[in-house]
């Protein structure tokens, strides 16, 4: 009996878990009208927003086995939408969601939902995620992502319905609010908020990064070995009368490369991470310029903060924000001297350890978020001087079938290096080099044994994770994505390209060169090119062939082999080339090919609330205040799918020793955490909200703004601090 045959039962086990039925479903292919009706109203724009915060209990996706089950929320998650239309009637819709990834499951279904009302089909709708790792999954078209992007696995059709409905509402609001507008765009540089977490692989790119990689100071080098450019498109509403120059800002679309991973994997709260800070700070600035009256129905200003070529770009969190990982421990429910030997499992560190890490992460969120926000606000102000309404919009879109595409491998494969996690987001098995020394290397590390050179094998030098079991037993057919929806959009002289992936810094730079080359072939020249990652789908990482050779986390996660970056770059070049020059014709015909989703078996993950007793009321039970923290305990109904996203629920108002108001916060602020604390008991749930950073507060009131379908709205309770 060989060691290899010993792992066969293990493979059977894993296959039983992973190879659930495919549950194949053909997604719609909604195509926009070829020639939208000219409106002759000039440039128009509208913005919208919808809360997409699900109830606690869902998995926090993006960190694989380290992604916790959520127990509450902090910065609420939103879908922010912006619809732009030029004088010819050409239209494009951007939606940036505070989600970990995007999926054609959402993109196609939202496009289908809004097509008739807005003319935005899949080819004119760019639906992207910020890549917050503190946001829910369970909506993917691909089975592997429903199974393995968080600790809590499963495909939840109600999550899909929830997100599609809410995102569609944001798009419809944006479309419905369209009005004459002026736009301006420019760039700024932000150094120090991000760093390259895969610096050695980055420096494999030779001439591309020679200047940075020779720098002797590691901190300087890593913080410059990322895409430090923030591109912003500012949108102001304008008078229909061209003679009136006054405008009012309604929003902005920004692209900046930064992982949504300031929160460590120990976090258990749904949260928009650093993107949520940047989004809100600019929105608050815009609102301060043009405060809306309380009765106003106009949409609030939005800042769509899209992610860029961020595959290897991490926020500059402090290392003390990272907690020890789960480690193997005996997990007998009760240790006994006789009976079955102990079972082993990964066990998380103690909660008090996590508290310390989360405290540092909180400070990092503020620091990194403030740095990016400050630069974004400065740029936004500057753009107010160059607003115009003459820009034209053109877009090119195609659906690419990936397996077997020339230059790509015939089947997607995950590498052993990917299982190690990134340097800044390691998994619990990082460093597990051997399954059985020296016969069965596992290669769960970056580089080293994750490299397996094999002559004539397309994926070489990637060591396939759990080779040879992965494709046959663990992933199965259609477990990974097989299509890529790609688009290039030109707005005036600004180009926004989208990729359903996480390109590394150098991949982003090379794609921009390809787009520029394609544009020149078509007779036009872009002045700036932004790459929106995590758009319209998710293929995991795309690394350059040089980076791929090192098989770090990013290379190990590149599913279709070392040629992926080049092939997708060529697709972008072709898309750019298909766009006519300024003053030329209309947008090219889009290729919206059918996509089949294989999400796996559905599972109830979102809560199914029990009915509260007759006459039940939401009620504040008690408020504690001390050490700069105000904590309110209240009972409320258990949430259904839609409840949390319906609006704010709790607010705090505090005054200082002299009785002056010093602050007020609600449950959509980084300093307020809401948790489900227990239950449900007889249909009722215990809730807790903590208002941190209330050091100056000596007294105040808590208001329950909204019960979960129960009476009790508006009740207040005073508190005094010890």
């Amino acid at each position, binding site marked *: *009996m060989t060691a290899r045959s*010993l*792992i066969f*039962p*293990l493979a059977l*086990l*894993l296959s039983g*878990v*992973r190879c659930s039925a495919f549950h194949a479903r053909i997604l719609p292919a909604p195509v926009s009208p070829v020639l939208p009706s000219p409106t002759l109203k000039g440039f128009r724009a509208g913005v919208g927003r919808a809360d997409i915060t699900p109830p606690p209990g869902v998995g926090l996706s993006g960190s*694989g*086995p380290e992604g916790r*089950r959520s127990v509450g929320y902090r910065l609420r998650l939103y879908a922010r939408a912006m619809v732009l239309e030029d004088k010819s009637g050409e239209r494009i819709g951007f939606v940036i969601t505070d989600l970990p990834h995007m999926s054609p499951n959402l993109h196609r279904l939202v496009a289908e939902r809004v097509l008739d009302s807005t003319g935005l089909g899949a080819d004119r709708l760019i639906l992207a995620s910020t890549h917050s790792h503190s946001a829910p999954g369970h909506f993917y078209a691909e089975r592997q992502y429903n*199974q*393995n992007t968080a*600790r*809590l*696995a499963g495909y939840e059709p109600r999550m899909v319905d929830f997100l599609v409905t809410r995102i569609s509402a944001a798009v419809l609001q944006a479309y419905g609010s369209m009005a004459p507008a002026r736009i301006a765009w420019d760039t700024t540089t932000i150094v120090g908020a991000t760093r390259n977490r895969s610096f050695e692989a980055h420096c494999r790119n030779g001439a591309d990064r020679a200047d940075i990689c020779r720098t002797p100071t590691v901190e300087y080098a890593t913080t410059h070995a990322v895409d430090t450019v923030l591109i912003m498109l500012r949108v102001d509403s304008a008078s229909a009368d061209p003679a009136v120059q006054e405008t009012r800002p309604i929003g902005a679309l920004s692209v900046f490369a930064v992982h949504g991973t300031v929160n460590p994997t120990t976090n258990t709260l749904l949260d928009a991470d650093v993107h949520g800070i940047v989004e809100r700070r600019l929105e608050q600035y815009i609102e301060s310029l043009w405060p809306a009256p309380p009765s106003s129905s106009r949409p609030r200003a939005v800042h769509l903060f899209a992610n860029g070529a961020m595959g290897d770009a991490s926020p500059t969190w402090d290392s003390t924000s990272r907690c020890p990982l789960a*480690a*193997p*421990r*005996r*997990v*007998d*429910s*009760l*240790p*006994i*001297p*006789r*009976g*079955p*030997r102990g*079972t*082993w*499992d*990964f066990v998380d560190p103690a909660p008090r350890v996590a508290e310390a890490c989360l405290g540092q992460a909180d400070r990092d969120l503020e620091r990194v978020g403030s740095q990016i926000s400050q630069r974004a606000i400065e740029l936004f102000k500057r753009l107010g001087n160059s607003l115009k309404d003459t820009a034209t919009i053109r877009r090119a879109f195609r659906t690419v079938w990936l397996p077997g595409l020339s230059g790509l491998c015939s089947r997607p494969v995950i590498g052993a290096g990917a*299982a190690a996690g990134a340097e800044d987001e390691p*998994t*619990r*098995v990082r460093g*597990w080099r*051997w*399954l*059985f020394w020296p016969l069965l290397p596992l290669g769960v590390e970056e580089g080293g044994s994750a490299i397996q050179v094999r002559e004539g094998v397309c994926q070489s030098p990637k060591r396939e994770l759990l080779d040879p079991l992965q494709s046959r037993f663990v992933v199965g057919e259609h477990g990974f994505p097989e299509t890529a929806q790609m688009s290039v959009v030109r707005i005036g002289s600004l180009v926004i390209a989208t990729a359903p992936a996480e390109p590394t810094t150098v991949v982003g730079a090379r794609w921009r060169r390809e787009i520029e080359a394609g544009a020149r072939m078509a007779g036009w020249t872009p002045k700036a090119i932004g790459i929106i990652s995590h758009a319209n789908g998710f293929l995991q990482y795309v690394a350059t062939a040089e980076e791929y050779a090192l098989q770090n986390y990013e290379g190990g996660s590149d599913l279709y082999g070392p040629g992926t970056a080049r092939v997708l770059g060529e697709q972008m070049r072709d898309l750019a080339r298909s766009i006519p020059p300024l003053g030329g014709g209309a947008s090219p015909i889009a290729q919206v090919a059918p996509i089949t989703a294989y999400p796996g078996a559905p599972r109830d993950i979102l809560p199914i609330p029990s009915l509260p007793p007759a006459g039940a009321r939401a009620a504040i039970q008690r408020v504690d205040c001390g050490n700069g923290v105000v904590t309110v305990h209240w009972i409320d109904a258990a949430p259904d799918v839609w409840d949390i996203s319906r609006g704010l629920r709790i607010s705090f108002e505090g005054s200082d020793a002299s009785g002056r108001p010093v602050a007020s916060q609600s449950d959509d602020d980084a300093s307020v955490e809401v948790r489900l604390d227990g239950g449900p008991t007889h249909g009722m749930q215990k809730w807790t909200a903590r208002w941190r950073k209330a050091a100056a507060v000596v007294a105040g009131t808590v208001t329950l703004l909204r019960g979960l379908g129960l009476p009790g709205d508006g009740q207040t309770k005073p508190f005094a601090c010890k």
Partner: protein
Amino acid sequence: MAAGILSFRIGLIATALTIGGWSAAQGQLVYRADAQVASRYLWRGMRRTDRSVFQSDVALGFQRGLHSLTAGAWLNSELHNARPGGVSDRPVGHWGPSETDLWLQYSGGAGHLRWSAGAIEYRLTTPGADPRATEVYGEVLSESGRWIPRIGLWHRTGRSGATYLETGFSFLHFVNPFTGPYATWTTTALAGLQLTQRNTMVPADWLPAPAGKGLTHVGLSSIIRLSKSIGPVAGLVSFGLYLQASRDSVLRLRSSSAATNRLLHLWAPVEFGVSIPLRRPE
């Protein structure tokens, strides 16, 4: 020596009672029950039976964090009639219960270390064997990664006074990091030592053990264990290989002679059963 052992026992009991009182005051009530069928019953390098057995246990205790105080019982029952010349704790032609153990144990931990200490009473149901024997014991292991060393010491109370030490080193090849069932693959090297020779002439304090002193056996096992939730219980399966070199691989209940067999055995142990409470609910 005897006085030292006595104070050790008193200390152990006092410790157990102190911690037990603390656990009872601050801990939560916990329980556990297991039932499994095993392909054979091996004990300290000795074959108690070569054929399948049913083993079950129940335990009740107080637990707070890593600390627990547990009382429980364990039963071994042979599932086949003992054959002439076969290895069995039962008389030829009989099957059924052969051993019932009762124990009281304190378990604790700090950092990477986990320990347990307690007293266990063996009740052998085989005709001809003394019905009871008691040991006090202590075990320590380190959970500091994939390599897990452990050491345990068992001391027989009463006039027999034998002390047995077992030490092992395990390597975790695999622990399922994903959702789904527990899945572990562990290889363990272990060695047993009889530190003091048991007094086989003390009939009132009889307990199976190899004769003489020194190394009793060394073993190398490679076992895969799977556990998956099935309704309200967890289903358990384990299988693998076990290679053992021993001085005395067969327990001879009726003959406590010093007969020594230097034997090398390769087994493929299989166990399956159920356990409550439910494990790994996600």
